[in-house]
């Protein structure tokens, strides 16, 4: 095989597209962790639910854009219910308990989708407007994956604006540093937590519906995704949103370039990356010491 | 003149751009009670963290009994005879009071013994009981540390520090949060302890230490401001200005 500049460039674009989905997933995970200290093991399952609901809404409305709006709302609503009924009683009990609970929850969600949509899953299709491939000058690249990169950039920008420029964002930022401050400001912190958990889940669902057209939608699709999004979150530093984005792209690119030279080690490469990062920077690229010990 | 047990030279600690302790040098004689005073943020706790080995200083040296121990690991500080009781209560919460003290005392005897039962170290059990009695916790022997009242936890702190039989005892605000009655008992205990070992006390309640200390050091903004007997300190204009003036 010849490593031409064209091939390497195309591979980099592929890596960025992969990284876009990783980054989105990690943002949701990191947001919930940074604010609530909850390690959400159901994140992969919510991604999967998002993919199913996305394809279901697509079938129902025949419009991908509707589905792109409806799905995060629906998964976000599921998130609200989860927080209110299951996670809230566990605050202050350490990280192990929410971890176990959300793990159990992920099994329930997987089984629920099996019952609702069948074991084999459902075929997914690319929206007609986004089909086909584009000549990037270095080779043909699927249009939909370019859309993925753009969509992620848009979502990240919106989220950044929300957190940096709005009153709610200010409360969230303050709350993640010190819940007392928020209480002093006279804001019901439990409602902030509820909202953040909902937003985190909505982002997981959104990544699911965005990723669905690129892959088979089946009940187990969230299991490997969970491990990958943890890797990204940890590499970036738990609780850091810029970290999630940078690490997402980094992991995507490392995966893509490893695929080129040693494809069978592609999956391993991201774990090696994580081990290296943590051994050099024990709290991740953008993480702060202090989270859990 | 007796040799100093602890000497620090040009001790400096920076956190990023902030300098918490700036070029502090001093020496402490054996079996004396010294207090370090200063307003909040003066660098008292940083000084303690450095001489107890919790951090390595950015610059300067620490000598204990003439030996340079700068940069050694914290547990080595403890093993050569420097013990610290913490400002914020820092005990093993889910262990019983007795076990807290027993573990602290065990350090001198056994650290990696895997197969002998703890119970077979009778001397440790007795020593822990004696120390609990000394700090007035004999009745709470089997309570979980987390179930003790605040003042009792402070007393437990002191018992743990003593368990290591230190030649140098560092006490970071031992009476913080204590009732007046508890404070009195604690001050008496400290006076007694200082008869057999070097004690350095950090306090920001100046009146409290004036009565019992022979020597005071005053820190301000990370720098050494003054040193002397209580009378000298009381008479020092600069100290009055930055410190007493506030209170």
């Amino acid at each position, binding site marked *: 095989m010849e490593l031409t500049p064209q091939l390497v460039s195309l591979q980099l674009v592929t890596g960025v597209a992969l990284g876009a989905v990783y980054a989105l997933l990690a943002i949701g995970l990191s947001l919930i962790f940074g604010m609530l200290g909850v390690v959400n093991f159901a994140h992969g399952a919510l991604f999967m639910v998002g993919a199913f609901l996305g394809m279901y809404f697509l079938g129902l409305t025949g419009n991908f854009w509707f589905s792109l709006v409806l799905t995060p709302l629906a998964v976000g609503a599921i998130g609200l219910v989860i927080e209110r009924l*299951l996670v809230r009683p566990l605050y202050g*009990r350490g*990280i*192990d*308990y*929410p*971890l*176990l*609970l959300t*793990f*159990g929850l992920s*099994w*329930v969600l*997987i*089984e*629920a989708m*099996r019952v609702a949509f069948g074991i084999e899953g459902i075929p997914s299709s690319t929206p007609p407007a986004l089909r086909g491939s584009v000549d990037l000058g270095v080779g043909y690249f699927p249009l939909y994956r370019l859309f993925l990169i753009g969509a992620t950039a848009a979502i990240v920008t919106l989220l950044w604006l929300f957190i940096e420029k709005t009153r709610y964002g200010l409360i969230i930022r303050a709350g993640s540093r010190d819940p007392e401050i928020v209480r002093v400001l006279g804001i019901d912190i439990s409602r902030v937590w509820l909202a953040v958990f909902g937003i985190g889940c909505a982002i997981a669902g959104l990544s699911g519906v965005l990723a669905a057209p690129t892959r088979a939608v089946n009940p187990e699709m969230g299991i490997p995704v969970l*491990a990958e999004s943890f*890797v990204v979150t940890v590499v970036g530093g738990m609780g850091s949103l810029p970290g999630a984005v940078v690490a997402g792209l980094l992991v995507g690119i490392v995966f893509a370039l490893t695929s080129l030279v040693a494809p*069978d*080690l592609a*999956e*391993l490469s991201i774990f090696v990356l*994580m*081990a290296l990062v*943590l*051994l050099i920077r*024990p709290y*991740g690229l953008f*993480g702060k010491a202090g989270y*859990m010990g | 003149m007796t040799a100093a047990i602890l000497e620090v030279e040009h001790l400096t600690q920076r956190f990023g751009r902030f300098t918490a302790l700036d070029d502090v040098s001093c020496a402490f004689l054996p079996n004396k009670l010294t207090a370090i005073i200063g307003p909040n943020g003066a660098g008292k706790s940083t000084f303690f963290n450095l001489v*107890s080995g*919790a951090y390595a200083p950015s610059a300067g040296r620490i000598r204990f009994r003439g030996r340079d121990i700068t940069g050694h*690991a914290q*547990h080595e500080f*403890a*093993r050569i005879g420097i013990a610290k009781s*913490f400002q914020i209560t*820092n005990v*093993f*919460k*889910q*262990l*019983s009071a007795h*076990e807290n003290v*027993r*573990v602290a005392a*065990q*350090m*001198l*005897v056994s650290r*990696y*013994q*895997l*197969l*002998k*039962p*703890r119970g077979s170290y009778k001397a440790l059990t007795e020593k822990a009981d004696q120390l609990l009695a000394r700090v007035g916790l004999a009745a709470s022997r089997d309570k979980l540390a987390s179930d003790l009242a605040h003042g009792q936890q402070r007393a437990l702190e002191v018992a*743990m520090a003593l368990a*290591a039989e230190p030649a140098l005892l560092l006490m970071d605000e031992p009476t913080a949060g204590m009732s007046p009655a508890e404070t009195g008992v604690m001050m008496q205990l400290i006076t007694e302890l200082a008869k057999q070992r070097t004690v350095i006390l950090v306090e920001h309640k100046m009146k409290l230490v004036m009565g019992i200390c022979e020597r005071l050091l005053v820190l301000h903004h990370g720098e050494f401001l003054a040193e002397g007997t209580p009378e000298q300190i009381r008479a020092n204009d600069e100290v009055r200005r930055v410190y007493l003036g506030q209170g």
Partner: protein
Amino acid sequence: MIDFIARHRVASVLAFLLVFPLVMPYEALAINILIFGLFAVGFNLLFGYTGLLSFGHAAFLGIGSYLTGIAIVHFALPWWLAIAIGVAAAGLAGLGIGFLAIRTRGIYFAMVTLALGQIVYYAFYKAERWTGGENGLRGVSVPVLDLFGLKLDFLDPITKYYVILAFVAAALWFVSRVLDSPFGAVIESIRENEKRAAACGYDVARAKLLVFVLSAAICGLAGTLRALHLSIVPIDSLHYLLSGQAVMMCLLGGMGTFFGPFVGAAVFLYLEDVVTTLTRHWMAVVGGVFIAFVLFFPKGIWGTLIDRLARARVAPRASPLRGAKRKSS
């Protein structure tokens, strides 16, 4: 009775395990429970007693299994030597992984152990010539155990159960001694307050490394026994999902209690076994049970039990059990 169990914890667990196969649906499940119980106990040494959550412990189970398997399949070594090799290899791997991982804390510690565990997984996956790769290692069969001239039929499930029980019992005795030792006190103090333990004069990093190695060796022993039990070594033995299972078993039974992990392993495997035969949707049922336990019995089955019994018995006066509950049962 709790007092009695606390005082003679190894004896009581042995007495129970002697009759255990009678109450189980079949011996292979009982043996699995022994093995995974030991795995969880080894894991709990690190998780429950030292407060370090590792997500890479499957590596030690798997290394124990594979090295024992390789010793038997490729080198035709006697079974006892194969076990020794498996345990030693797991301990060594524990030394390496532990040395790297103890530099980090909290969730990062969990993730470093996960990553290093995955690296072990791929190493064994790729070493197909020695490990059989994805197909697993087959032929770890020891039909007859030769014990100083005594020939034991290892294909007979009951014999197999008691042989494996002997190893598990020895390991439990060892763990029990360690927990009761001065070193046991050191690791508990590290769990409670790492900074304070260092200020007390304990070398925290070294103690963590030692307990990591011990924990790895115990898990490795569980692995070697599993290889002998199943006569195969599946590649899943190294998978992080198995590490996750150890966490679940500990939490389900009660972390930081001596019997908890064993109870957790038994309930987990028994539940999975029974529910699987009842419904294809076993994942939902098992997942639901987890949720219920976290919400309503956060101390785990055994932890809740000893708590309730202790409270009911000695409510009025200061309870000696409660003061020492972490170490006594």
